[in-house]
């Protein structure tokens, strides 16, 4: 919830990406993520990551935010996965780890670097999109890419009710904690967690019925329409061109 609030706040500031049409940003970010996936050399991957960091700083997203909110977690997760590859990937010996006697291969180190740079690059680009664009705008922009209207509406409503249900779950756990003295034994904790999930499930189903009736009473007959209110300005066309040039350049650079 904190992340959602912070993302909404950052999306409202006047940075480089915040001022662009959401459709341009979505297309641009997807094209660059595709370039990250396609790149077959480390220099291109490093360039794409650098590009994402420069775009973040031009959009008033401080490096500290990137590091604390994204990179530390990503590095911890992918780092643990990539580490053994240094030793298990067969190939030319690079050096032996002193003390442990483990041999690091050139191919192992390269492979770990591919994985880390690729994961960091793609995650930073996705982060840029979410932290510079209100979620409702991202959803509306999806319509431009022929995502069915019903999927867009379901995604939007899901997002809204995630926040509602999260609040309900928090309240439930707070209520339970405020009535509990001392630690509970494992089986009781398992039962209470399952009961909380059960209550939340019942609440969700009831809420879906209420929401359905509310929608029907406002004239909903199953047809879904999304109002497209975006308008392309000259700077959006320029940004679209820049994204296209950069993505093409990166795909070309990364082909070998």
């Amino acid at each position, binding site marked *: 919830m904190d*992340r*959602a609030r912070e*993302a909404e706040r950052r999306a409202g500031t006047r940075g480089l990406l915040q001022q662009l049409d959401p459709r341009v940003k979505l297309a641009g970010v997807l094209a660059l*993520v*595709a370039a*990250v*996936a*396609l790149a*077959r*050399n480390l220099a291109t991957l490093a360039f794409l990551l650098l590009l994402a960091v420069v775009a973040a700083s031009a959009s008033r997203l401080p490096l500290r935010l990137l590091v604390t909110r*994204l990179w530390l977690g*990503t590095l911890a997760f*992918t780092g643990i996965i990539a580490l*053994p*590859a240094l030793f*298990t*990937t067969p*190939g030319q010996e690079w050096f032996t780890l002193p003390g442990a006697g483990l041999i690091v291969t*050139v*191919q192992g180190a*390269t*492979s770990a670097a*591919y*994985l880390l740079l690729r*994961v960091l*690059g*793609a*995650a930073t680009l*996705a*982060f840029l999109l*979410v932290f510079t664009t209100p*979620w409702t705008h991202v959803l509306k922009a999806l319509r431009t890419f022929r995502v069915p209207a*019903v999927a867009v*509406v*379901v*995604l939007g*409503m*899901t*997002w*809204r*009710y995630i926040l509602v*249900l*999260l609040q309900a*779950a928090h309240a439930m756990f707070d209520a339970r904690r405020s009535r509990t003295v001392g630690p509970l034994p*494992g089986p009781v*904790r*398992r*039962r209470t*967690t*399952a*009961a909380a*999930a*059960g*209550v*939340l*499930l019942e609440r*969700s189903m009831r809420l*879906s019925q209420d929401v*359905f009736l509310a*929608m029907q009473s406002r004239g909903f007959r199953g047809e879904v329409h999304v109002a497209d209110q975006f308008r392309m300005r000259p700077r959006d066309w320029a940004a679209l061109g820049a994204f296209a040039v950069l993505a093409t350049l990166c795909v070309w650079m990364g082909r070998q």
Partner: protein
Amino acid sequence: MHIPDGYLSPLTSAALYAGAAPFWYVALRRVRAALHTRLVPLLSLFAAFSFVVMMFNIPLPGGTTGHATGVALAAVVLGPWASVLAISVALAIQAFFFGDGGITTLGANCFNMAVAGSLAAWAVYRAVAGNAPLSSPRRAMAAGLAGYVAVNLAALLTAIEFGLQPMFFADASGAPLYAPYPLRIAVPAMMLGHLTIAGLAELVVSAGVVAFIQRSDPSLLARGAGMTAPAAPGNGARGGSLRPLWAGLGILMVLAPLGILAAGTAWGEWAAEDFNDPAARQEIADASLGVAPPAAAPSGLDRLSAVWTAPWPDYAPPFVRSARFGYVLSAVLGVGLVILAFLLLERLGRPGRREGQASG
């Protein structure tokens, strides 16, 4: 189990988007036909519930904690097709907004968890729960087992996708471009955690929540148990056609010769004569972490391998010269035999038949 961007090649990602697409299409057609205007709020709320329940930390025996995906609960409460959609929506929001799972790998994550997970969970739940009453403890047990199987199947698919990457995608120096571990490392590493912690968490949540619902509102289990009132004829409640699934099956059959591309030998699938062939012996040793095979074929293998000779060995009948064509022919024949077997089973198990015989 949420695969981030960068772990799978664009080709694998595209193939898994293509693999998930027919299921999304059929699911949407079926669910829309069954739910009509209720589709949007029900899917949204259930996807939101799945998302939130994924954040619950479950204390597990042994002092550790894990979290569930809610896929079995979705299949049990909503049925398999609505579950495919609800879990896919939850995964899409996690990928786009929370960076949990990638954008290019969303198709793979949906294929593993939403599609394979939901269908497997539903099949296990229906098979184990049978026609037990809604309040029967057997249903809670069935839901727990369904969750365990679904999560482990999804993990196995994920591991296989990881394990295929270094086989096909490496740079000029031989360094893997994406997930770096071969199948022999990826599968055990992935399954160890899922057969124990993650599978157990799913089991505890699925069984616990179903047991809770049985006490508080058993009617929620009626849809997944197939106990809802039958729809009026003519409103298409049985939903969309299975044509996209047949098309998907056709594509998979055409792609069957892809297996020829795999390098090396399939571990453990050796013939007795392979032990006498130096090239085959080298392949066996390479596939077994360098451990040399015994000097001669084990006597049991030698004796038992003569018991049955396949009429169509090595996926190609003797009269077919092209290995690729032989693979496609084998795929067509194999799928045909499986469909025939199920048609026969269905005919044997159809209640009308017995009634008809009794009255006749």
